[in-house]
Protein backbone atom coordinates (compact mmCIF):
# COMPACT_ATOMS: atom_id res chain seq x y z
CA UNK A 1 0.00 0.00 0.00
CA UNK A 2 1.45 3.36 -1.01
CA UNK A 3 1.25 6.41 1.22
CA UNK A 4 -1.53 7.91 -0.90
CA UNK A 5 -3.64 4.73 -0.93
CA UNK A 6 -3.27 4.45 2.81
CA UNK A 7 -4.37 8.03 3.32
CA UNK A 8 -7.35 7.49 1.04
CA UNK A 9 -8.41 4.39 2.98
CA UNK A 10 -8.09 6.24 6.29
CA UNK A 11 -10.11 9.16 5.04
CA UNK A 12 -12.88 6.95 3.67
CA UNK A 13 -12.93 5.09 6.97
CA UNK A 14 -13.26 8.32 8.98
CA UNK A 15 -15.95 9.69 6.73
CA UNK A 16 -17.88 6.41 6.87
CA UNK A 17 -17.68 5.83 3.12
CA UNK A 18 -16.54 2.19 3.37
CA UNK A 19 -18.92 -0.70 2.79
CA UNK A 20 -19.33 -3.15 5.75
CA UNK A 21 -16.82 -5.73 4.44
CA UNK A 22 -14.16 -3.16 3.79
CA UNK A 23 -14.81 -1.69 7.17
CA UNK A 24 -14.35 -4.95 9.03
CA UNK A 25 -11.12 -5.64 7.09
CA UNK A 26 -9.85 -2.17 7.83
CA UNK A 27 -10.62 -2.43 11.53
CA UNK A 28 -8.66 -5.69 11.64
CA UNK A 29 -5.74 -3.96 9.97
CA UNK A 30 -6.00 -1.09 12.38
CA UNK A 31 -5.79 -3.41 15.37
CA UNK A 32 -2.77 -5.26 14.09
CA UNK A 33 -0.89 -2.27 12.69
CA UNK A 34 -0.03 0.48 15.18
CA UNK A 35 1.11 2.79 12.40
CA UNK A 36 -2.30 2.70 10.72
CA UNK A 37 -3.99 3.26 14.05
CA UNK A 38 -1.90 6.34 14.67
CA UNK A 39 -2.67 7.64 11.20
CA UNK A 40 -6.40 7.31 11.89
CA UNK A 41 -6.09 9.31 15.10
CA UNK A 42 -3.91 11.94 13.50
CA UNK A 43 -6.07 12.29 10.41
CA UNK A 44 -9.29 12.54 12.41
CA UNK A 45 -7.79 15.41 14.32
CA UNK A 46 -6.56 17.05 11.14
CA UNK A 47 -9.91 16.80 9.36
CA UNK A 48 -11.61 18.30 12.41
CA UNK A 49 -9.19 21.21 12.35
CA UNK A 50 -9.72 21.71 8.64
CA UNK A 51 -13.49 21.57 9.03
CA UNK A 52 -13.53 24.09 11.84
CA UNK A 53 -11.18 26.30 9.90
CA UNK A 54 -13.58 26.23 6.97
CA UNK A 55 -16.53 27.20 9.17
CA UNK A 56 -14.52 29.95 10.82
CA UNK A 57 -13.56 31.37 7.44
CA UNK A 58 -17.13 31.27 6.18
CA UNK A 59 -18.40 32.94 9.33
CA UNK A 60 -15.82 35.69 9.08
CA UNK A 61 -16.67 36.57 5.51
CA UNK A 62 -20.37 36.49 6.42
CA UNK A 63 -19.64 39.03 9.18
CA UNK A 64 -17.91 41.30 6.67
CA UNK A 65 -20.86 41.13 4.29
CA UNK A 66 -23.34 41.85 7.10
CA UNK A 67 -21.25 44.80 8.29
CA UNK A 68 -21.05 46.31 4.81
CA UNK A 69 -24.78 45.83 4.18
CA UNK A 70 -25.86 47.31 7.51
CA UNK A 71 -23.51 50.26 7.12
CA UNK A 72 -24.96 50.92 3.66
CA UNK A 73 -28.50 50.78 4.99
CA UNK A 74 -27.48 53.08 7.82
CA UNK A 75 -28.66 50.55 10.42
CA UNK A 76 -25.39 50.88 12.30
CA UNK A 77 -23.40 54.02 12.85
CA UNK A 78 -20.27 53.01 11.05
CA UNK A 79 -17.95 53.83 8.16
CA UNK A 80 -17.38 57.32 9.43
CA UNK A 81 -16.58 58.83 12.76
CA UNK A 82 -18.42 62.06 13.02
CA UNK A 83 -18.29 65.25 14.99
CA UNK A 84 -17.03 65.08 18.52
CA UNK A 85 -16.10 61.41 18.46
CA UNK A 86 -13.78 61.89 15.52
CA UNK A 87 -12.08 64.96 16.95
CA UNK A 88 -11.62 63.23 20.28
CA UNK A 89 -10.11 60.21 18.57
CA UNK A 90 -7.74 62.18 16.37
CA UNK A 91 -6.68 64.46 19.18
CA UNK A 92 -5.91 61.58 21.53
CA UNK A 93 -4.07 59.68 18.94
CA UNK A 94 -1.95 62.37 17.39
CA UNK A 95 -1.43 65.12 19.94
CA UNK A 96 2.10 64.08 20.78
CA UNK A 97 3.54 63.62 17.33
CA UNK A 98 1.42 66.24 15.62
CA UNK A 99 3.28 69.35 16.60
CA UNK A 100 6.74 67.89 15.99
CA UNK A 101 5.78 66.44 12.64
CA UNK A 102 4.23 69.68 11.47
CA UNK A 103 7.36 71.71 12.03
CA UNK A 104 9.63 69.13 10.40
CA UNK A 105 7.26 68.78 7.47
CA UNK A 106 7.24 72.51 6.86
CA UNK A 107 11.02 72.76 6.61
CA UNK A 108 11.32 69.63 4.46
CA UNK A 109 8.58 70.66 2.06
CA UNK A 110 10.15 74.03 1.42
CA UNK A 111 13.59 72.48 0.73
CA UNK A 112 12.31 69.70 -1.51
CA UNK A 113 9.96 71.81 -3.56
CA UNK A 114 12.79 74.25 -4.13
CA UNK A 115 15.11 71.48 -5.31
CA UNK A 116 12.50 69.92 -7.56
CA UNK A 117 11.65 73.24 -9.13
CA UNK A 118 15.30 73.88 -9.97
CA UNK A 119 16.22 70.46 -11.30
CA UNK A 120 13.16 68.95 -13.00
CA UNK A 121 13.50 68.87 -16.80
CA UNK A 122 10.61 69.64 -19.08
CA UNK A 123 9.03 66.37 -20.30
CA UNK A 124 9.11 65.40 -23.98
CA UNK A 125 5.51 64.89 -24.94
CA UNK A 126 6.03 62.96 -28.18
CA UNK A 127 6.49 59.61 -26.39
CA UNK A 128 3.28 59.94 -24.46
CA UNK A 129 0.08 58.61 -25.84
CA UNK A 130 -3.29 59.61 -24.55
CA UNK A 131 -5.71 56.77 -24.44
CA UNK A 132 -8.85 58.27 -25.82
CA UNK A 133 -10.24 56.39 -28.75
CA UNK A 134 -10.78 58.06 -32.07
CA UNK A 135 -13.77 56.58 -33.77
CA UNK A 136 -13.50 55.84 -37.45
CA UNK A 137 -16.05 58.32 -38.63
CA UNK A 138 -14.22 61.09 -36.84
CA UNK A 139 -14.18 64.80 -37.58
CA UNK A 140 -17.75 64.80 -38.78
CA UNK A 141 -18.30 68.47 -39.04
CA UNK A 142 -21.05 69.91 -41.17
CA UNK A 143 -23.35 72.78 -40.79
CA UNK A 144 -26.18 70.26 -40.44
CA UNK A 145 -24.56 68.88 -37.33
CA UNK A 146 -24.20 72.30 -35.80
CA UNK A 147 -27.91 72.89 -36.11
CA UNK A 148 -28.58 69.45 -34.70
CA UNK A 149 -26.46 70.25 -31.69
CA UNK A 150 -28.43 73.36 -31.05
CA UNK A 151 -31.60 71.31 -31.10
CA UNK A 152 -30.14 68.84 -28.66
CA UNK A 153 -29.16 71.54 -26.26
CA UNK A 154 -32.68 72.82 -26.25
CA UNK A 155 -34.47 69.49 -26.04
CA UNK A 156 -32.22 67.80 -23.42
CA UNK A 157 -32.80 64.38 -24.93
CA UNK A 158 -30.22 62.28 -26.72
CA UNK A 159 -30.88 61.91 -30.45
CA UNK A 160 -30.59 58.43 -31.84
CA UNK A 161 -28.09 59.16 -34.57
CA UNK A 162 -25.67 61.44 -32.76
CA UNK A 163 -22.20 60.64 -34.11
CA UNK A 164 -19.52 60.45 -31.42
CA UNK A 165 -15.91 61.03 -32.36
CA UNK A 166 -13.97 60.17 -29.23
CA UNK A 167 -14.58 58.49 -25.94
CA UNK A 168 -13.18 57.41 -22.62
CA UNK A 169 -14.25 56.44 -19.16
CA UNK A 170 -15.45 58.44 -16.17
CA UNK A 171 -16.64 57.60 -12.68
CA UNK A 172 -18.95 59.13 -10.10
CA UNK A 173 -17.26 61.15 -7.35
CA UNK A 174 -20.38 62.71 -5.89
CA UNK A 175 -23.72 60.89 -5.87
CA UNK A 176 -25.52 64.03 -7.03
CA UNK A 177 -24.20 63.22 -10.49
CA UNK A 178 -20.67 64.55 -10.64
CA UNK A 179 -18.14 62.48 -12.55
CA UNK A 180 -14.44 62.84 -13.04
CA UNK A 181 -12.60 61.94 -16.22
CA UNK A 182 -9.49 63.08 -18.10
CA UNK A 183 -9.32 66.55 -19.58
CA UNK A 184 -8.09 65.15 -22.89
CA UNK A 185 -11.21 62.99 -23.20
CA UNK A 186 -13.56 65.95 -23.13
CA UNK A 187 -11.47 68.87 -24.38
CA UNK A 188 -13.12 70.62 -27.32
CA UNK A 189 -16.34 68.72 -26.75
CA UNK A 190 -19.61 69.98 -28.16
CA UNK A 191 -21.70 67.29 -26.57
CA UNK A 192 -20.99 64.78 -23.83
CA UNK A 193 -23.00 61.67 -23.12
CA UNK A 194 -22.23 59.16 -20.38
CA UNK A 195 -23.46 55.63 -20.53
CA UNK A 196 -23.35 52.40 -18.53
CA UNK A 197 -25.63 49.45 -17.98
CA UNK A 198 -28.04 51.64 -16.00
CA UNK A 199 -28.64 54.07 -18.82
CA UNK A 200 -27.43 56.86 -21.06
CA UNK A 201 -27.39 60.45 -19.84
CA UNK A 202 -26.49 63.88 -21.14
CA UNK A 203 -23.70 65.53 -19.23
CA UNK A 204 -22.01 68.88 -19.26
CA UNK A 205 -18.49 69.98 -18.54
CA UNK A 206 -18.21 71.76 -15.20
CA UNK A 207 -14.51 72.31 -14.77
CA UNK A 208 -11.38 71.36 -16.69
CA UNK A 209 -7.74 71.35 -15.61
CA UNK A 210 -5.58 70.62 -18.64
CA UNK A 211 -2.30 70.72 -16.73
CA UNK A 212 -3.33 67.85 -14.46
CA UNK A 213 -5.45 66.28 -17.20
CA UNK A 214 -8.61 66.20 -15.10
CA UNK A 215 -12.16 67.28 -15.78
CA UNK A 216 -15.35 67.26 -13.77
CA UNK A 217 -18.64 66.55 -15.54
CA UNK A 218 -22.15 66.84 -14.25
CA UNK A 219 -25.03 64.68 -15.42
CA UNK A 220 -27.70 67.16 -16.47
CA UNK A 221 -30.20 64.64 -17.73
CA UNK A 222 -33.68 64.78 -16.21
CA UNK A 223 -33.84 60.98 -16.19
CA UNK A 224 -30.85 60.68 -13.86
CA UNK A 225 -31.96 59.64 -10.40
CA UNK A 226 -28.79 60.03 -8.34
CA UNK A 227 -27.17 57.52 -6.03
CA UNK A 228 -26.51 56.72 -2.43
CA UNK A 229 -22.91 57.48 -1.54
CA UNK A 230 -20.16 55.93 -3.63
CA UNK A 231 -18.86 52.57 -2.38
CA UNK A 232 -15.24 53.56 -3.01
CA UNK A 233 -13.41 56.48 -1.49
CA UNK A 234 -10.91 58.83 -3.09
CA UNK A 235 -7.50 58.36 -1.49
CA UNK A 236 -5.00 61.17 -1.20
CA UNK A 237 -2.16 58.67 -1.05
CA UNK A 238 -0.84 56.58 -3.90
CA UNK A 239 0.28 53.70 -1.68
CA UNK A 240 3.31 51.41 -1.71
CA UNK A 241 5.14 50.02 -4.70
CA UNK A 242 3.80 46.61 -5.72
CA UNK A 243 0.39 47.27 -4.15
CA UNK A 244 -2.16 45.36 -6.19
CA UNK A 245 -4.63 47.57 -8.05
CA UNK A 246 -7.48 47.09 -10.47
CA UNK A 247 -9.55 49.16 -12.83
CA UNK A 248 -12.91 49.17 -14.59
CA UNK A 249 -13.21 50.99 -17.88
CA UNK A 250 -14.73 51.11 -21.33
CA UNK A 251 -12.11 50.26 -23.97
CA UNK A 252 -15.02 48.63 -25.81
CA UNK A 253 -18.76 49.00 -25.53
CA UNK A 254 -18.82 46.93 -22.39
CA UNK A 255 -17.24 47.44 -19.01
CA UNK A 256 -13.85 45.71 -18.82
CA UNK A 257 -11.95 44.72 -15.67
CA UNK A 258 -8.18 44.52 -15.52
CA UNK A 259 -5.67 44.27 -12.73
CA UNK A 260 -2.05 45.11 -12.05
CA UNK A 261 0.15 46.80 -9.51
CA UNK A 262 1.66 50.14 -8.63
CA UNK A 263 5.08 50.14 -10.28
CA UNK A 264 6.52 53.63 -9.63
CA UNK A 265 5.57 56.62 -7.59
CA UNK A 266 6.12 59.10 -10.38
CA UNK A 267 4.57 59.22 -13.78
CA UNK A 268 5.91 59.70 -17.30
CA UNK A 269 9.41 61.13 -17.27
CA UNK A 270 9.43 61.83 -13.53
CA UNK A 271 6.07 63.61 -13.54
CA UNK A 272 5.09 64.02 -9.88
CA UNK A 273 1.43 64.66 -10.65
CA UNK A 274 0.95 61.04 -11.57
CA UNK A 275 2.20 57.54 -10.83
CA UNK A 276 3.12 54.56 -12.95
CA UNK A 277 1.12 51.36 -12.94
CA UNK A 278 1.56 48.01 -14.59
CA UNK A 279 -1.77 47.17 -16.17
CA UNK A 280 -3.11 46.42 -19.58
CA UNK A 281 -4.67 49.66 -20.75
CA UNK A 282 -6.28 50.32 -24.08
CA UNK A 283 -7.77 53.22 -25.93
CA UNK A 284 -10.94 54.13 -24.11
CA UNK A 285 -9.49 53.38 -20.67
CA UNK A 286 -8.65 57.06 -20.19
CA UNK A 287 -10.45 58.28 -17.10
CA UNK A 288 -10.83 54.85 -15.49
CA UNK A 289 -10.50 54.72 -11.69
CA UNK A 290 -7.42 52.96 -10.34
CA UNK A 291 -8.57 51.20 -7.20
CA UNK A 292 -6.53 49.48 -4.51
CA UNK A 293 -7.54 46.41 -2.57
CA UNK A 294 -9.25 48.45 0.15
CA UNK A 295 -11.60 49.94 -2.42
CA UNK A 296 -9.90 53.32 -2.48
CA UNK A 297 -9.43 55.20 -5.74
CA UNK A 298 -5.74 56.11 -5.83
CA UNK A 299 -5.72 57.65 -9.29
CA UNK A 300 -7.21 58.10 -12.73
CA UNK A 301 -5.73 56.30 -15.69
CA UNK A 302 -4.63 58.87 -18.24
CA UNK A 303 -2.09 57.46 -20.64
CA UNK A 304 0.66 55.01 -21.52
CA UNK A 305 4.14 55.21 -22.95
CA UNK A 306 4.14 54.56 -26.69
CA UNK A 307 7.57 52.94 -26.87
CA UNK A 308 7.04 50.42 -24.07
CA UNK A 309 4.24 47.93 -23.48
CA UNK A 310 2.39 47.13 -20.30
CA UNK A 311 2.76 50.19 -18.23
CA UNK A 312 0.44 53.08 -17.95
CA UNK A 313 0.13 56.25 -15.93
CA UNK A 314 -2.47 57.55 -13.56
CA UNK A 315 -3.14 61.05 -12.23
CA UNK A 316 -3.02 60.92 -8.43
CA UNK A 317 -6.26 60.96 -6.45
CA UNK A 318 -5.26 63.99 -4.39
CA UNK A 319 -5.72 66.21 -7.42
CA UNK A 320 -9.40 65.29 -7.51
CA UNK A 321 -9.62 66.88 -4.08
CA UNK A 322 -7.86 70.00 -5.34
CA UNK A 323 -10.16 70.20 -8.32
CA UNK A 324 -13.29 69.82 -6.22
CA UNK A 325 -11.95 72.46 -3.81
CA UNK A 326 -11.50 74.93 -6.65
CA UNK A 327 -15.00 74.13 -7.87
CA UNK A 328 -16.34 74.90 -4.43
CA UNK A 329 -14.65 78.30 -4.56
CA UNK A 330 -16.05 79.06 -7.99
CA UNK A 331 -19.59 77.99 -7.23
CA UNK A 332 -20.42 77.47 -3.54
CA UNK A 333 -24.02 76.60 -4.38
CA UNK A 334 -23.12 73.11 -5.67
CA UNK A 335 -20.57 71.69 -3.26
CA UNK A 336 -19.02 68.39 -4.25
CA UNK A 337 -18.56 66.01 -1.35
CA UNK A 338 -15.94 63.36 -1.93
CA UNK A 339 -16.25 60.13 -0.05
CA UNK A 340 -13.17 59.78 2.17
CA UNK A 341 -13.96 56.30 3.40
CA UNK A 342 -14.49 53.18 1.40
CA UNK A 343 -17.43 51.03 2.47
CA UNK A 344 -16.14 47.98 0.60
CA UNK A 345 -12.67 47.73 2.12
CA UNK A 346 -13.06 44.24 3.50
CA UNK A 347 -14.99 42.58 0.71
CA UNK A 348 -13.63 40.14 -1.84
CA UNK A 349 -12.48 41.58 -5.14
CA UNK A 350 -15.47 40.22 -7.08
CA UNK A 351 -17.93 41.69 -4.55
CA UNK A 352 -16.10 45.03 -4.78
CA UNK A 353 -16.30 45.04 -8.56
CA UNK A 354 -20.00 44.21 -8.42
CA UNK A 355 -20.65 47.22 -6.23
CA UNK A 356 -18.40 49.60 -8.17
CA UNK A 357 -19.46 48.96 -11.73
CA UNK A 358 -22.68 50.96 -11.61
CA UNK A 359 -20.60 54.03 -10.81
CA UNK A 360 -18.32 53.79 -13.84
CA UNK A 361 -19.47 55.28 -17.12
CA UNK A 362 -18.41 55.34 -20.73
CA UNK A 363 -17.90 58.97 -21.74
CA UNK A 364 -18.84 59.69 -25.34
CA UNK A 365 -17.90 62.99 -26.90
CA UNK A 366 -18.35 64.83 -30.16
Amino acid at each position, binding site marked *: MSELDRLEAVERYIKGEMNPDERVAFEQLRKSNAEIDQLVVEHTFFLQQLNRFGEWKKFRSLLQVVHTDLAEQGSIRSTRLQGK*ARILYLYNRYKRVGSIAASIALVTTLCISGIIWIFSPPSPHSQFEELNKKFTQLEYKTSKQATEIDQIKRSSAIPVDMPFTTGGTGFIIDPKGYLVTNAHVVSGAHNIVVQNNKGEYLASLVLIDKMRDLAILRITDDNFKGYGSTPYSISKKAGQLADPIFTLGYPRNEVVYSQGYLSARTGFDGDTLSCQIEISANRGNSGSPIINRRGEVIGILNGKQTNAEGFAFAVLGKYIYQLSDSLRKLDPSFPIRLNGRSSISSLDRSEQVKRIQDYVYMVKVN
Partner: protein
Amino acid sequence: MKSDQHEQDLLKGLAIGDKQTIELIYRDHYNLIQSLIINNNGSADDAKDIFQEAMIVLYEKVRSGSFELNCQLKTYLYSVSKRLWLKKLSANNRYVISGADLEPSFPVEEEVEAHEKRDAEFDMMEKAIASLGEPCKSLLEAYYLNKQNMQVIAATFGYTNADNAKNQKYKCLVRLKKIFFAHYKNGMEHE
Protein backbone atom coordinates in the same frame (compact mmCIF):
# COMPACT_ATOMS: atom_id res chain seq x y z
CA MET B 1 -29.53 34.72 35.64
CA LYS B 2 -30.86 32.83 32.64
CA SER B 3 -30.92 34.36 29.18
CA ASP B 4 -34.47 34.68 27.94
CA GLN B 5 -36.15 32.78 25.13
CA HIS B 6 -35.53 35.37 22.43
CA GLU B 7 -31.80 35.36 23.07
CA GLN B 8 -31.75 31.57 23.12
CA ASP B 9 -33.34 31.58 19.68
CA LEU B 10 -30.74 34.07 18.45
CA LEU B 11 -27.94 31.86 19.74
CA LYS B 12 -29.40 28.81 18.01
CA GLY B 13 -29.59 30.75 14.76
CA LEU B 14 -26.03 31.88 15.22
CA ALA B 15 -24.85 28.30 15.71
CA ILE B 16 -26.00 27.35 12.21
CA GLY B 17 -24.48 30.55 10.74
CA ASP B 18 -27.86 32.06 9.82
CA LYS B 19 -27.30 35.40 8.11
CA GLN B 20 -30.51 37.01 9.36
CA THR B 21 -29.65 36.18 12.97
CA ILE B 22 -26.19 37.67 12.57
CA GLU B 23 -27.78 40.83 11.19
CA LEU B 24 -30.15 41.06 14.14
CA ILE B 25 -27.38 40.71 16.70
CA TYR B 26 -25.17 43.10 14.74
CA ARG B 27 -27.90 45.73 14.52
CA ASP B 28 -28.72 45.62 18.23
CA HIS B 29 -25.25 45.59 19.69
CA TYR B 30 -22.73 47.11 17.30
CA ASN B 31 -23.21 50.73 18.31
CA LEU B 32 -22.54 50.04 21.98
CA ILE B 33 -19.24 48.32 21.21
CA GLN B 34 -18.27 51.08 18.82
CA SER B 35 -18.83 53.67 21.56
CA LEU B 36 -16.64 51.65 23.90
CA ILE B 37 -13.76 51.45 21.42
CA ILE B 38 -13.97 55.04 20.21
CA ASN B 39 -14.08 56.45 23.74
CA ASN B 40 -10.91 54.50 24.41
CA ASN B 41 -8.50 55.61 21.69
CA GLY B 42 -9.87 53.39 18.94
CA SER B 43 -11.05 54.08 15.43
CA ALA B 44 -14.18 52.86 13.65
CA ASP B 45 -12.04 50.20 12.01
CA ASP B 46 -10.79 48.99 15.38
CA ALA B 47 -14.41 48.84 16.53
CA LYS B 48 -15.35 46.70 13.58
CA ASP B 49 -12.44 44.31 14.15
CA ILE B 50 -13.13 43.97 17.86
CA PHE B 51 -16.88 43.49 17.44
CA GLN B 52 -16.38 40.84 14.78
CA GLU B 53 -13.84 39.06 16.95
CA ALA B 54 -16.31 39.08 19.84
CA MET B 55 -18.94 37.63 17.48
CA ILE B 56 -16.50 34.85 16.63
CA VAL B 57 -15.93 34.13 20.33
CA LEU B 58 -19.70 33.87 20.73
CA TYR B 59 -20.01 31.73 17.61
CA GLU B 60 -17.37 29.33 18.89
CA LYS B 61 -19.18 29.11 22.21
CA VAL B 62 -22.52 28.21 20.68
CA ARG B 63 -20.86 25.87 18.16
CA SER B 64 -19.59 23.86 21.07
CA GLY B 65 -23.24 23.31 22.08
CA SER B 66 -23.43 25.72 24.98
CA PHE B 67 -26.40 28.07 24.75
CA GLU B 68 -26.16 29.17 28.37
CA LEU B 69 -24.43 32.52 28.60
CA ASN B 70 -25.26 33.09 32.29
CA CYS B 71 -25.70 36.74 31.43
CA GLN B 72 -27.38 38.88 28.81
CA LEU B 73 -26.12 38.71 25.25
CA LYS B 74 -25.33 42.40 25.39
CA THR B 75 -23.26 42.01 28.56
CA TYR B 76 -21.44 39.06 27.08
CA LEU B 77 -20.47 40.84 23.85
CA TYR B 78 -19.49 43.93 25.81
CA SER B 79 -17.30 41.99 28.23
CA VAL B 80 -15.53 40.06 25.49
CA SER B 81 -14.98 43.20 23.43
CA LYS B 82 -13.61 45.06 26.40
CA ARG B 83 -11.24 42.25 27.26
CA LEU B 84 -10.03 41.98 23.65
CA TRP B 85 -9.54 45.72 23.36
CA LEU B 86 -7.63 45.90 26.65
CA LYS B 87 -5.27 43.24 25.39
CA LYS B 88 -4.77 45.03 22.11
CA LEU B 89 -4.11 48.36 23.80
CA SER B 90 -1.55 46.97 26.19
CA ALA B 91 0.13 45.04 23.36
CA ASN B 92 0.55 48.32 21.48
CA ASN B 93 1.72 50.15 24.60
CA ARG B 94 -1.12 52.57 24.35
CA TYR B 95 -3.22 53.96 27.13
CA VAL B 96 -5.25 51.67 29.33
CA ILE B 97 -9.04 51.82 29.42
CA SER B 98 -10.31 54.44 31.79
CA GLY B 99 -13.51 56.22 32.65
CA ALA B 100 -16.98 55.00 33.43
CA ASP B 101 -18.16 51.64 32.14
CA LEU B 102 -21.04 51.70 29.68
CA GLU B 103 -22.14 48.27 30.79
CA PRO B 104 -21.34 45.89 33.69
CA SER B 105 -18.70 43.32 32.83
CA PHE B 106 -18.84 39.57 33.10
CA PRO B 107 -15.73 37.42 33.60
CA VAL B 108 -14.71 36.05 30.20
CA GLU B 109 -10.94 35.64 30.54
CA GLU B 110 -11.01 31.93 29.87
CA GLU B 111 -13.12 32.22 26.75
CA VAL B 112 -10.94 34.97 25.36
CA GLU B 113 -7.80 32.97 25.98
CA ALA B 114 -9.25 29.85 24.37
CA HIS B 115 -10.30 32.02 21.45
CA GLU B 116 -6.80 33.39 21.02
CA LYS B 117 -5.35 29.92 20.95
CA ARG B 118 -7.86 28.79 18.32
CA ASP B 119 -7.28 31.95 16.35
CA ALA B 120 -3.57 31.20 16.26
CA GLU B 121 -4.34 27.67 15.04
CA PHE B 122 -6.60 28.96 12.27
CA ASP B 123 -3.98 31.50 11.28
CA MET B 124 -1.49 28.70 11.03
CA MET B 125 -3.85 26.67 8.85
CA GLU B 126 -4.45 29.66 6.61
CA LYS B 127 -0.72 30.22 6.15
CA ALA B 128 -0.10 26.52 5.55
CA ILE B 129 -2.77 26.42 2.82
CA ALA B 130 -1.50 29.62 1.24
CA SER B 131 2.07 28.30 1.15
CA LEU B 132 0.98 25.30 -0.96
CA GLY B 133 0.53 27.45 -4.03
CA GLU B 134 -1.74 26.59 -6.95
CA PRO B 135 -3.41 24.31 -7.90
CA CYS B 136 -3.21 22.66 -4.45
CA LYS B 137 -4.68 25.64 -2.60
CA SER B 138 -7.82 25.92 -4.73
CA LEU B 139 -8.20 22.17 -5.02
CA LEU B 140 -8.18 21.58 -1.25
CA GLU B 141 -10.37 24.60 -0.59
CA ALA B 142 -12.92 23.38 -3.09
CA TYR B 143 -13.08 19.89 -1.59
CA TYR B 144 -12.56 20.34 2.14
CA LEU B 145 -13.85 23.87 2.76
CA ASN B 146 -16.51 24.40 0.13
CA LYS B 147 -17.46 20.70 0.14
CA GLN B 148 -17.67 20.45 -3.60
CA ASN B 149 -18.23 17.15 -5.32
CA MET B 150 -15.12 15.49 -6.85
CA GLN B 151 -16.76 15.29 -10.29
CA VAL B 152 -17.48 19.02 -10.27
CA ILE B 153 -13.93 19.74 -9.12
CA ALA B 154 -12.45 17.58 -11.88
CA ALA B 155 -14.48 19.53 -14.45
CA THR B 156 -13.64 23.02 -13.13
CA PHE B 157 -9.93 22.28 -12.70
CA GLY B 158 -9.64 20.55 -16.06
CA TYR B 159 -8.78 17.01 -14.93
CA THR B 160 -9.72 14.26 -17.34
CA ASN B 161 -11.65 12.37 -14.66
CA ALA B 162 -12.54 12.40 -10.99
CA ASP B 163 -9.85 9.81 -10.15
CA ASN B 164 -7.06 12.03 -11.45
CA ALA B 165 -8.39 14.94 -9.45
CA LYS B 166 -8.67 12.72 -6.37
CA ASN B 167 -5.09 11.57 -6.75
CA GLN B 168 -3.87 15.14 -7.05
CA LYS B 169 -5.98 16.10 -4.06
CA TYR B 170 -4.36 13.44 -1.88
CA LYS B 171 -0.88 14.53 -2.97
CA CYS B 172 -1.76 18.08 -1.95
CA LEU B 173 -3.23 16.87 1.33
CA VAL B 174 -0.04 15.04 2.24
CA ARG B 175 1.93 18.25 1.70
CA LEU B 176 -0.55 20.30 3.73
CA LYS B 177 -0.45 17.86 6.62
CA LYS B 178 3.35 17.95 6.69
CA ILE B 179 3.42 21.74 6.85
CA PHE B 180 0.56 21.88 9.36
CA PHE B 181 2.00 19.35 11.80
CA ALA B 182 5.49 20.85 11.60
CA HIS B 183 4.03 24.20 12.68
CA TYR B 184 1.68 22.58 15.15
CA LYS B 185 4.45 20.75 17.00
CA ASN B 186 6.50 23.94 16.99
CA GLY B 187 3.61 25.82 18.50
CA MET B 188 3.19 23.21 21.24
CA GLU B 189 6.83 23.47 22.23
CA HIS B 190 6.58 27.22 22.61
CA GLU B 191 3.78 27.00 25.11
